[in-house]
Every structure is written in C-alpha cells, then in structure tokens.
C-alpha cells in the first residue's frame, strides 16, 4: 500500500549571507509523502534545486528526533510550527492539507544574526551559559549518589527546566525577542538543586548581565515563549529567574 501524498507550495526565506538583503522564494513540491517531516521536505526541495542547478536552502538539523534543539524555523508565523510542543523535525506534512501554501522563515532577533537562509547564529546562548550556567565540581573520587538529599518534587521541577534544549524558539516567538524563558530554565534547573546553591547568586547576576549584553529584549510577560516551547517549559521559571536576580541584587555578599 502506498502512503498518501500531497502537494505543498512553500514560500521560503533565502538570504545568501549575514549582511545581504534576503527575500522569499516560492517553490511547489508534488507527491510528497504525508509522513515526511519538515526538514525531510526541505531535503526534497534541495534535490529539486540541485537538479535545476540552483543553490540548495541552508538549514540546521541534527538528531531529527525532537531532542537536540538544532532545527528551528518560523512556519506560518509560529516558531517551530503550528503543532504544540514539537520541534520542526517533529512537524509532519500530515499536519497540513493538500495544495496548502506554507511560509518558512528563520528565527528573527538581533541577538540571533542570520548566517544563511534559515541558519542562524545562536552562540549568544553559549555565552550566557559560559557566564554562569554551570556548577563547579571538584575532581576526585565520585561522591556517594545519595549523600545530598533532594526532595522529589524539586528534582521533578529541576528536570522539567533541564529539558530545555536551547533551540531558541522562545526568543523567536517573543514579541520582544527576549531570552527570559531560556535563561529562566537554565537558572531554575541549577537553583532548585543543592549542587547549584553555592554559586546561586553569582550565577543569577552573571547570566542576566550576559543576557543583556547580547541585545535580547525585555520580557513583557506575554507567554508566547511558553506556547511555542517544544519542551513545554513554564514561565514559572521566568518568575523564579526574577526572584533569583532580585534576591542576588539586594542580598548577595559577593560582587560580580
């Protein structure tokens, strides 16, 4: 039995490099298997473009299992596409109808400059993590796993925050291009656990300053980030970030 197929017209953003003007290009792809994911559809497009002697579309992806956070684009105005809690690679053509036109453009933010087509530079996130998104651990013999008691509900909350894969959809969806959900998740996953406590204040101050240096916007509490996050990370993590930074600013003994 052959799988049903559909025809999709895509309007896709093409930009040859970081500092050149980009524009939309329209392509129609026929007989597409409905079980194809969006990146697979872009591969079909690229084969078609290559056969025509044109330059294929540059886009990022890695695991294609919705885990790694590498893929990402804005599909019909929604970061990571119109399906809830999915990455681009978990968005399948069966979610669209035959002869539909879909618009695909890159995540847009000053802090995420476009490298080419749909590929953006997310190293701003790396620099925020370098500023404080870690715990310092002395090397040596591994400590006993159960030596630090962790309450079950806190472990669960920390794990939920740690699910953030840093895909950047929160920044893309935020009307202000703010990175608060990402930073909130990274601060929370460590602040909730005893291992993160010693550097808690320094971390909050350093990461917020790094975030501001990168040119992200300010959180307007609009909850768009939460709505598009493939991992369903809650804005309660942003409230925790607000608390952590306020506490560190008002009461920290050490200066950063």
């Amino acid at each position, binding site marked *: 039995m052959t799988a049903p197929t559909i025809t999709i017209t895509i*309007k896709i*953003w093409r930009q040859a490099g970081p500092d050149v003007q980009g524009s*939309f290009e329209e392509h129609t792809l026929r007989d597409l298997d409905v079980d194809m994911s969006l990146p697979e559809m872009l591969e079909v497009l690229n084969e078609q473009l290559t056969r025509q002697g044109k330059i294929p579309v540059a886009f990022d992806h890695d695991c294609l299992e919705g885990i790694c956070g590498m893929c990402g684009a*804005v599909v*019909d*105005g*929604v*970061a990571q596409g119109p399906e809830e809690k999915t990455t681009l690679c978990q968005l399948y053509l069966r979610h669209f109808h035959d002869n539909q036109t879909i*618009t695909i*453009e890159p995540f*847009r*933010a*000053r*802090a995420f400059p476009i490298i080419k087509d749909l590929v953006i530079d997310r190293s701003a996130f790396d620099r925020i993590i370098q500023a404080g998104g870690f715990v310092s651990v002395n090397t040596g013999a591994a400590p006993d796993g159960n030596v630090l008691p962790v309450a079950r509900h806190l472990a669960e909350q920390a794990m939920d925050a740690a699910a953030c894969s840093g895909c950047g959809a929160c920044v893309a*969806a935020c*009307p*202000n*291009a*703010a990175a608060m959900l990402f930073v909130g998740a990274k601060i929370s996953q460590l602040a909730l656990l005893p291992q993160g406590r010693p550097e808690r204040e320094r971390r909050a101050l350093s990461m*917020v*300053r790094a*975030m*501001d240096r990168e*040119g*992200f*916007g*300010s*959180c*307007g*509490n*609009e*909850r*768009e*980030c*939460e*709505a*598009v996050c493939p991992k369903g990370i809650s*804005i*309660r993590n*942003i*409230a*925790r*970030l*607000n*608390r*952590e*930074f*306020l506490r560190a*600013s*008002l009461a920290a003994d050490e*200066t950063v």
Partner: protein
Amino acid sequence: MSWFTQTVTSSLGKKYIMALTGLLLGGFLLVHAAGNATILLGRTDFLSYARRLHSLGLPVTIAEITLLLLFCIHAVTGLVLFYRNHQARPSPYAVSRRAGGRTWGSATMAWTGIAILCFIVLHLTNFYFADHRRSLADIVGGILDNPLYSALYCAGLLALTLHISHGFWSMFQSLGLNHPKYDGLIGTCRWILCGSIVGVFLTIVILLLIKRNYLA
C-alpha cells in the same frame, strides 16, 4: 557602577521598576475612584469631600509630587523598554501569528500606555489646571456634559482597562511572585480591582452625560 545602578539599569531591573511604580499608581487609582464615588452621592457630598481633602494642605502637595514622580518614572521606563524591545528585532516576520500566549491587553501594552499618558494630559488640563474660581462641581459638570469629552473619557477608560488587564498579573510575575497557589486569587483580584476602578469612573461619565444637571 554601584549595585543599585547595575540592578535598575538591567533588563530585569526595569521590569521591577515598572511593577513597583505600576502597583503604586494602581493604589492611587483606587483611592481616586473611591473619592470620586462621592460624585454619585450628589453635589454637597462631593464638594465636602473635596474641601476636606484640600484642607489637609502639605500632605496633599507631597502626595501630588510623589505621584508625578511615580508617573514619570513609569512612563519613561516604559518608553525605554518599548524602544529597546523594538531594537531587539530589527527585521519583523513576514507572517506573524499568536501562538496562544498574547492577549489584547498584553499586545497593546505600550499603545494603551501612550493613550493613558495623552488622556492624563487632557484630564489635568480639564480639572487640575482649570479656573478654580468656579466650584469643582461646576467644573466637573461643565466638562462631562459635553458628548465629545464623554467619548474621550470612555476611550481613556478603555485604554486603562486593557492596560490593567495585563499589568496587574504582569506585576506579580515580574517581581517573581508567581505560584500555583495564588494564580486564582491574582486572576480574581485583577478583575475585581479593574472592574471597581473603571466601573466607578464609567458610571460618573455616563451619569453626568445623561443627567446634565446632576451636580448643579
């Protein structure tokens, strides 16, 4: 830079400023609405309330200066945030759709803020800087029996409703006071406060438009 300057100039610091000044301005609005509610009791009660309030003297002047400062800080910080946020995404999306978080209140926050700023200039011109040789009741009655002013005041109240509908909840979130236990309470208080403040003002506007000699 001192820790204080570093805190208030950070992106989160500006949100704390918006939340705290917003809270105090909201508190003022509640008192303002409670005072103005005396209009509903008639000319005598309204004038006696106004007389007693102004007879307090110095505390009223201090409150007025504080209020002006709070308002300026809230407006300037809001405009700075609006400008910075605009800069954070220089090229807009070709297709933009709400994913489910945005509300009318949150999407129009800056615009309703600017509308309220314009409304307050009008409101102060109408009442605060009016010719006070006439009684306050005559000034109020004289302005609000004009349908044009009634429409402008209704528009101002609409902007205020939208602004509070997002601002009240947003204030708690910005200060980190977000907890599942209090979500319901914050949601209910938002509509009770917004409803009572706007309700009182709207009733006054409509009453004075319909019954033109109510304060005469």
